[in-house]
């Protein structure tokens, strides 16, 4: 037993426990408990609670070698048990608080008046939460149950570590996919109902979540597929792709692309109105993300006031087309679109010019200031006669083409899809064009770029203008889709949202924008419980991405190459203590993971 590192166990165990207690006390467990993943057995809230123990067990057992089975398992078990302690402390606090209050009031009568309800202090420490934590039992038996299950999950985390590595990943994939399918069961049910009879669906899904037996089957099937793929399929696939001639590879890629395109065309028919609405919102964010990606990802200018251009596009569309009191031109949607984009570009250039000489973080703060100025102005009485102040612009007509009116989300889907495809095409062509390479050169080093003959002013303003154009387009479609706009839809949160999605997707990567928007905008819309904790998760995700995977979920190949080369070229950056630098051997070992093959 001497091989067990108890300090490490206590450290990881308590951290995991504090995380579990935190997600409980801020109300996430209770809110997420409303969503069952496996009917009657496992809810999303419980997954959240228990994943801390399982992850802790997995991480702590990493310290042990895989062959040492018993020490690994003991480590996992202990971590799981320890992780339960802070949560149990929470239960004790909630259950014992009235008595504590009474005892204190006995000792000092003036304390009688102090709020005696724990929820006056911690608003989410509710009886319902305690019921979830104790599995609906008495506090004592419930706590013991919790202790036992957290311990088992810690053990489970360690088991994943102990099994041969060729099963480790498939197991994780199996668990994650089962959880995902369970989590999205409501959505899947909505889609499948159109094709499958509801009696058959009842076999699969419960009232909420997926039924236990199908869940088990799904888990086994996905794991098996992953194992087979890992053992055979992947190599065979790579060999076939490797053997194919460039022309064949190109054809395969084209085929894949056209399949995706076909799928995009028929998507609204598969999804139904509600989900199409969600996809529409994701699309608007993809459009903005593509624009911000040019500014931040290509040109390296961190813009936190990006929402300003979205607002300008929306307001331009609003006052140009509105049939209400504020509209003065009465233009059609199609005539207003280029004007809205043009005004946004102009604003981009006007706001971009003063900040030309600023770099990095200063630029971020100034653009944030611009965004706030625009928002405050939009709300203020100053511009009220023109843009409506807090009441906003109303009666914006729906777009119309040859007698066909865009009313339903399905109609707007095609409009947004066209906008996204256009923006993606422009961004994709620009990236490898002279301008794109100028942007990237500027991002790497402005002085060197200027010395190479790049006109910094022109290049930067083009980046700001291009980015603003897409945001303006997105805002204009948004205005027409909603029919009315209010200044409170244009706050800083939108900028942060767009920034988060391009960072999570991968800075500078076009598919990354789509992935980021699906994860950060689509998921919270599908899972209503997420909405309240959306920005908490964004914050945590931004930190986690920067710590663990700064290149994003779908990194651009150039970026990936650069990250690797940077490491090679400058092993020690400024501010590094030369004595605490990581040994070179570790860096060498990490390199193949990030290298482009």
């Amino acid at each position, binding site marked *: 037993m001497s091989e067990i590192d108890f300090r490490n166990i206590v450290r990881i165990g308590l951290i995991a426990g504090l995380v579990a207690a935190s997600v409980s006390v801020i109300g996430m467990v209770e809110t997420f408990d409303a969503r069952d993943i496996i009917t009657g057995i496992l809810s999303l809230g419980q997954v959240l609670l228990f994943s801390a123990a399982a992850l802790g067990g997995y991480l702590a057992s990493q310290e042990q070698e895989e062959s040492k089975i018993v020490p690994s398992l003991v480590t996992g078990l202990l971590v799981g048990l320890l992780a339960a302690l802070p949560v149990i402390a929470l239960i004790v606090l909630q259950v014992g608080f009235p008595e504590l209050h009474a005892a204190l009031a006995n000792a000092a009568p003036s304390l009688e008046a102090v709020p005696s309800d724990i929820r006056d202090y911690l608003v*989410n420490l509710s009886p319902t939460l305690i019921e979830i934590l104790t599995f609906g039992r008495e506090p004592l038996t419930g706590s013991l149950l919790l202790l036992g299950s957290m311990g088992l999950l810690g053990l489970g985390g360690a088991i994943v570590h102990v099994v041969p590595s060729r099963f480790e990943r498939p197991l994780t994939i199996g668990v994650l996919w089962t959880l995902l399918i369970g989590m999205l069961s409501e959505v899947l049910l909505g889609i499948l109902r159109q094709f499958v009879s509801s009696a058959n669906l009842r076999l699969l899904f419960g009232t909420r979540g997926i039924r236990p037996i199908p869940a088990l089957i799904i888990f086994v099937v996905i794991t098996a597929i992953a194992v087979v793929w890992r053992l055979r399929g992947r190599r065979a696939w790579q060999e076939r792709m490797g053997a194919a001639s460039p022309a064949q590879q190109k054809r395969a890629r084209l085929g894949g692309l056209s399949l995706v395109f076909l799928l995009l065309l028929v998507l609204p028919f598969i999804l139904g109105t509600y989900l199409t609405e969600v996809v529409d919102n994701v699309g608007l964010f993809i459009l903005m993300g593509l624009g911000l990606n040019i500014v931040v990802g290509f040109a390296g200018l961190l813009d936190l006031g990006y929402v300003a251009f979205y607002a300008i596009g929306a307001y331009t569309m609003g006052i140009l087309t509105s049939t209400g009191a504020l509209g003065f031109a009465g233009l059609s949607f199609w005539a207003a679109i280029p004007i809205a984009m043009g005004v946004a570009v102009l604003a981009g250039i006007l706001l971009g010019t003063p900040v030309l000489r600023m770099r990095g973080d200063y630029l971020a703060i*100034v653009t944030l*200031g611009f965004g*706030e100025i625009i928002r*405050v102005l939009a709300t203020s009485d100053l511009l009220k006669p023109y843009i409506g102040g807090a009441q906003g612009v109303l009666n914006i007509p729906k777009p119309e083409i040859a007698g066909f009116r865009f009313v339903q989300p399905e109609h707007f889907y095609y409009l947004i899809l066209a906008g996204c495809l256009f923006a993606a095409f422009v961004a994709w062509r620009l990236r490898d064009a002279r301008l794109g390479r100028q942007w990237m050169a500027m991002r790497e080093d402005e002085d060197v770029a200027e010395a190479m003959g790049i006109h910094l002013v022109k290049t930067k303003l083009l980046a700001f203008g291009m980015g603003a154009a897409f945001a303006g387009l997105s805002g204009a479609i948004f205005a027409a889709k909603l029919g009315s706009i209010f200044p409170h839809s244009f706050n800083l949160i939108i900028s942060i949202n767009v920034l988060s999605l391009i960072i999570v997707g991968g800075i500078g990567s076009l598919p990354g924008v789509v992935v980021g928007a699906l994860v950060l905008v689509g998921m919270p819309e599908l899972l209503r419980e997420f909405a309240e904790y959306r920005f908490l998760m964004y*914050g945590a995700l931004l930190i986690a991405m*920067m*710590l663990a995977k700064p290149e994003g979920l779908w990194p651009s190949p150039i970026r990936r190459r650069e990250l690797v080369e940077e490491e090679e070229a400058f092993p020690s950056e400024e501010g590094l203590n030369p004595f605490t630098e990581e040994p070179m051997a570790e860096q060498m070992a990490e390199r193949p993971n990030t290298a482009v093959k």
Partner: protein
Amino acid sequence: MPRSLKELDYVGLYLWLFRAAVIIIVLWGTVSKIFLGVGNDYASSDWIDFFIAGLSQGSLYALIALGYTLVYGVLFMINFAHGEFFMSGTMTSTIFIAIPLATSGFLEEFPFLSLLVIILASMTVSVFIALLTERIAYRPLRRAPRLVPLITAIGASFFWQYFFRGLYGSQVVPFPTITALEGYWPILGVAILKTRVVVMVASVIMLVGLYIFVMRTKTGKAIRAVAEDKDVAALMGVDVDRTVAITFAVGAAMAGAAGILYGLLFRQTHFFMGFIPGIKAFTAAVLGGIGSIPGAALGGLFLGLFESVGPPLFLEGLGIPGSHQLKDVISFTMLVLVLIFRPQGIIGERLSEKKA
């Protein structure tokens, strides 16, 4: 004009026009207010009131700005989450200390002792949150490209905001009133709200204390050494990690105290309360010259004054309706103007390319 007109390119011209426009607007507004009496009619006591309100608000900005300045001086990083350190301490201390003290009558009996306890509790929580943030989100990224810690700082800011929203709820928590601090004190013939006097006095004490700490103590010397050059400081035997952590802690302690003073002034706390004061305090730090402690103090006072006197003075003079709504526009415009035209601030040294 620094260059002859011929050399002036479009960008330079645009910036000159921008500058001229701002000066003309401010002058025009002021003149028409003072000589033509546009807008509301204020007695001279009203102006003194605006002035004092500006000073007390400004001393809060100064206290928060210290955190930005210290961290920027040491790490060249904008600690976007600083406003959340301010909020976390204030809310926690209000809910767990101030309200129980008020309901039990202790606050009534020993107002100043209670206030001290409340402030200390707030400082402790702020320091704890700051150290946690530094350890998890900033320290591992100290040698990453400069945008990376800025992005984690934005992440940390949102994380803490919504974390504390989950903890304490999204409603406004009123800060208890202290009867001993209600009403006015006559000072030099002017009646000044007692809370404002307390805020200003407390701020001055803390600013001076911090200045002495940084300039006279050994730890302060270590902070200045690390700000100058981390590698050399490390070679001289300074524990860089520890010093950076201390810098964060000191800044957060100031913010925590400022939060309680904010509660005294505005009588309310809220999970979102840190955000706008945070950005404004950053503006104050830039205005005074980031990296300089007296600069932060001066910048804070200036910003508070502009915000308080500006809307009634030149915005009303321009005939703008609802001018008080635009006070945030004033501070953000000042931030933009300072960064464009005088990035070194009022008393700061010109930042080298590396830092700017």
